[in-house]
Structures are given as structure tokens and as C-alpha cells.
């Protein structure tokens, strides 16, 4: 009896695991595009409610795992031109380089440095990577609602090959359009960061959140990113996503 119960439990948990992975894979598939670009406005709200505004331009070629992206600050004036190149990999953490025009140098961001906040925002360098479905193990935790919309609540844990500051994350995926509504990331059981996605619109057939709010639980600060001039599948070239391209701006 107890063996049969254990077998049923195992089957059901395998079933849940497969479902959770399929949900995340479907979410990724639906947002797949050849390229993406947008202009982002970031409102960084510190713990003392002091607000600072930053702007960046973002361009990505490829999707999930095999993508490369460049993010370049356009404001405020003193960080204008500072840029980040992210080369994502399917089998390991991304490679990242930051370009600082004032010293005309690029600097590789080491894996252990990815928990650092990215240029005074509440994003860490790791949060700017793309999450490839195969780099995590998943478990369906049940149903929930975010902003009044029904979601699947899924726990994801990074596989050994994926070095991460987070030991686990809880991902809410909307049932109506498979977009990610929220991610809470933990170190052991401590909440580190919450990323909330809203203002979801259909752009070129892809449901896309136009507002991303990141909450840093340690600092009690938050950053609101608004995506403007969003465009998918614009023609881009692979050679515009190299260290040389990062340097030339």
C-alpha cells in the first residue's frame, strides 16, 4: 500500500514537473523573436523615496540561450555611452562586458559579480540575462492570481551548470497569454528581488510587458522600467554584438 502510494506520488510529481517545464517552454516560445529593441526609461526610487531617472537603449539579436544584447545608457549625461554587452549561452551563465567611455575600456563582469546592482538601478547584472528553460528545474506549485489574472505559480531552481546568486525563484505565468507576470528570487528562503511585469500589450504578435518593476528587498528600493519604441524582428547583424561593436557605440 505504502509502495503504491509512493509510486503514485512520484508519478504525480513527475507529471507536475513536466507540466511546469512545458508552461515555461511555451512562455518562451510565444515570446521568441529574431530581434528586439526598445528605449527604456528607468525610475529608480531609493529607500528614502529619492527618485533618479536613467535611460537606456536596448538591442537584442536571437532568442533564449543563443541571444546577444547590448544595452547603452543615454541619460543622465554623466553615464551617457556606458554600455553592457551580454552574450547568453544555452549551457552556462552569460558572458558580460561593460564599456566605460570615460576611460575607453571594457571590463568583463565575472560570474561572482553578477549579484551587483547594475549602475545604480535595482537590476543586478544577472537579472539582465535571458533565462533559458533548460538551465532550470521546475516544479508547479499551484494556481494564483497576479493583478487579478489567473497564473500558474512555478518554482524554478538553477541547475548546477548555471551559476546564480539565487537558490530558487518563483515564477508566475499568466494562463491567458503565457506571459510572465512576476518573478520572486530567493537566496535560501530570503527574498532578494521581486520583478513585476505589467501593462502587457500585444506587439507584433508577441504579448509583452511594457512596464517592469524591480524591488530590491534588501535595500527596500525599486526601479520601474518602461519600454518605449518597442520593436520586434527589426533587421540586425551579428557583428553589431561584439566587443568591438560595444566600443564603437
Amino acid at each position: 500500500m505504502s509502495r503504491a502510494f509512493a509510486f503514485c506520488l512520484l508519478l504525480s510529481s513527475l507529471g507536475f514537473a513536466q507540466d511546469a517545464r512545458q508552461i515555461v517552454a511555451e512562455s518562451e516560445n510565444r515570446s521568441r523573436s529574431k530581434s528586439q529593441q526598445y528605449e527604456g526609461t528607468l525610475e529608480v526610487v531609493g529607500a528614502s523615496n529619492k527618485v533618479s531617472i536613467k535611460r537606456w537603449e536596448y538591442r537584442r539579436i536571437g532568442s533564449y540561450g543563443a541571444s546577444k544584447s547590448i544595452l547603452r545608457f543615454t541619460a543622465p549625461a554623466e553615464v551617457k555611452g556606458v554600455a553592457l554587452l551580454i552574450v547568453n549561452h544555452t549551457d552556462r551563465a552569460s558572458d558580460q562586458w561593460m564599456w566605460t567611455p570615460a576611460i575607453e575600456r571594457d571590463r568583463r563582469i565575472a560570474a561572482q559579480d553578477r549579484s551587483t546592482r547594475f549602475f545604480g538601478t535595482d537590476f543586478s547584472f544577472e537579472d539582465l540575462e535571458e533565462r533559458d528553460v533548460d538551465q532550470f528545474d521546475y516544479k508547479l506549485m499551484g494556481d494564483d492570481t497576479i493583478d487579478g489574472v489567473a497564473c500558474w505559480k512555478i518554482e524554478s531552481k538553477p541547475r548546477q551548470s548555471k551559476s546564480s546568486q539565487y537558490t530558487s525563484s518563483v515564477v508566475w505565468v499568466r494562463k491567458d497569454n503565457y506571459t510572465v507576470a512576476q518573478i520572486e528570487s530567493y537566496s535560501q528562503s530570503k527574498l532578494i528581488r521581486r520583478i513585476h511585469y505589467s501593462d502587457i500589450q500585444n506587439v507584433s504578435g508577441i504579448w509583452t510587458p511594457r512596464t517592469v518593476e524591480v524591488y530590491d528587498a534588501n535595500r527596500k528600493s525599486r526601479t520601474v522600467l518602461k519600454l518605449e519604441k518597442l520593436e520586434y524582428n527589426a533587421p540586425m547583424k551579428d557583428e553589431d554584438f561584439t566587443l568591438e561593436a560595444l566600443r564603437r557605440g
Partner: protein
Amino acid sequence: MGKLARALLPVLFSLPLAAQTFSQRGYLESDLTLYPETAPNDSGQAVDDSLFRYEASYQALPWLRLAGSFDARFDTHEQAERTARLDWQDRSLQRPALSLREFNATITKGKLTAEFGKQFIRWGKADILNPTDRFAPKDFLTVTDPDFLAVLAARVTYDTGTDSFDFVWQPRFTPSRTPLINERWTVLPQTVAGISLVDLGAEYPGRSAFGARWNHIGSGYEFSASFYDGFNSLPVFQGALDGFFRTYPELRLYGADAAVPLRWFTVKAEAAYYTSPDRQQDEYVIYVLQFERQIKELSIVAGYAGDAITARTPTLQFSPELGFARAILAHAQYTIDSNRSVAVDAAVRQNGRGSWIRAEYSQSFGQHWRATAGYSWIRGDDGDFLGQFHRNSFGLLALRYSF
């Protein structure tokens, strides 16, 4: 206006407007430097230096970008010239009052990038001292706080993503700017005390310089190998009856650098072997080994710079590179929040005869303003490169408006 410029202007103005992307930025900064002590050749204790810098770039065509940068400066200590001429050569003893800091054209075709004109070229991976960085002369008017100078060069880069090949040809020599003879960053030996020394000018190299560098990005590591054949941007001083003049030794350099991110820290190493075909300077190896770690908002870089002299030449040379070698070097920066940060830099010679420590606090106000306050302590004795500046500890107050 030269013939070339006259020929190019109509072409530039006829470029399609649809492809235009113009971007600009710049700042106005005023630095107040306060020296608690006077120096034997410099009684000035307060120096104000104001700089206006404007940078613009114009994407004329998808494959062509034009960029330029202009500096206007004024100071109270005559470190900057007082003549209103537009300088583009960076060969003057003083900083030019008006200067075309950078102007170049970048042509991109697939994996190939060619850049022509006055430009900044930075090689190497270390953060504190870069022995392989040969196309990067500096302004050493304040020895502990140098600023890079651009060089007139043609640079061609082929970048595959994992490998890049960089070829540089520099037809016209740009020297590093050495400390002014009548100011505190030139420390004269006791033997010439009371003698009026005059800079009789420089003999600049007549031929061009060439360099090549290969950089490879692997899975979890990066390395480069480089070669340079040209001239040292730092002068050798040749004595004459009524003063001295500057010559620039031939230099051939073989270099390598690497960065390996490990689990707990990133290791960066950079080394170069300097040879002197005309035997006008020492031959030596300079190397840097540094460890770098980011812990939350604290960034730490610490390392050692060493040298090994393989052949000595009895010449008098200004050499901050060797002066900062045989030393422990460190940099730490803590970001308090998105507007405030503190930083500490240090160089301590292993023989204990010279040390330099700088602490700086910086805060931005709104979207445009930044204020910085700092202090640099220099300790040591006259026989050491760093120690000889022991009278030059200084406080700095800087205010910058960026646009």
C-alpha cells in the same frame, strides 16, 4: 582650411539626412587643488583648473561614423597655455587652452572596423597599470592623476566575436606630457639647486609606429598577445650647456594579458617586455598580477606590479611606469546609493620608501551635477619615484556639470 577638408565638406553635407544620427555630450568642470606644503620650485598652494569638454558623434551612413571632441581650459597656475590657438598635436609642454582632443572617422563593414584620425586606443586588461598600453600617451602634469591623450593613427580591427585582430599604424608621434620644470611635480636634485634649467625643446621621432594585438575570448577566460614597434612616449633628457632637450627612445615591445574569472575572484595578469633597439633606454619586463572581487556594492582590486631590468642604459628618463612598479597597488570603491560613492586608491612601494593613498567621496545632484572631494597623501623619501613627491599631498574639490 586644408584641401582635404574643402574636398570632403560637400560630400559630408550631401549625405542622406535619413541616415543621420547625431549624439553629443560633455561637461564643464572646475577643480580646486589645495597643497598644504610649498615645494622648492613652486610656492603655489591653491590651483584652480576649469575644463569645458564637448564630444559629438555623427552616424553619417550606416557604415560611417564621424566623431570629435573639443577641450577648452583655463587654470590659475599656467599649466594651461594662455594663447587662443586651436591645438590638435598635443606636443606642447603646457596643456593647450583650446584643443581638438579627438577627431576620427569609423568605417564598419561586416566584421571589419577601420578607424582613421585622432583617437584613443587602449590595450591591456589590468586596471591599475597597463604595461601593454602603448598607443596611450598621458598628460603627467599631475603625476598621480594622469589623463590620456589621443594619437593620430589608423586602426583596423577584425572581430569574429571570439577572436579579434587589431592593427594600428601611427604615422605621427604624440609624446606624453611631462611635469613642468618650474612646478612642484618636477623634483630637481640638490646638485642642480639654484641653476636655472631651460627646456630646449624636443627631437621627435621621424618614422611611424606600428602595433598588432590578438585577443581571444574563451569559455571562462580571455587572453591577448600584442606587439609594438615604435617609440616610448616618455622622454629621455639630454643635457646641454644652457638646459636640456628631450628625445624619445625607440621601443619594441612584446606583451600579453589575460583575465580569468574564478569562483571567488577574477585574476588579471598583464606583462610586457620592453626592448630598446637604439639603446637609449633600459630594457625591462613589467608585469601586473591583480585580483578583483565585487561584494555587493563594494568593488576591490588589489595586485602587485613588478619589474625586472635586463639591460641598463645610463640615461635620465622620466618613467612613471617603472616608478609605480615594485609596488602593491589597490583600488576599492563602495557605492553607497545611486548618487553617492567613496573610493580609495593606493600604491605602496615594496621597499617602503614611497607610498600614495587617495580617498575620494563623490555625490551627484539631480541629472547634471556632481561634486567630488578627495585627498591624496604622498609619503616617502627623495630617492624614490613616489617618495620624491612627498611635499605634494593635496586636497581636491571638484564640481562638474554634465550635459
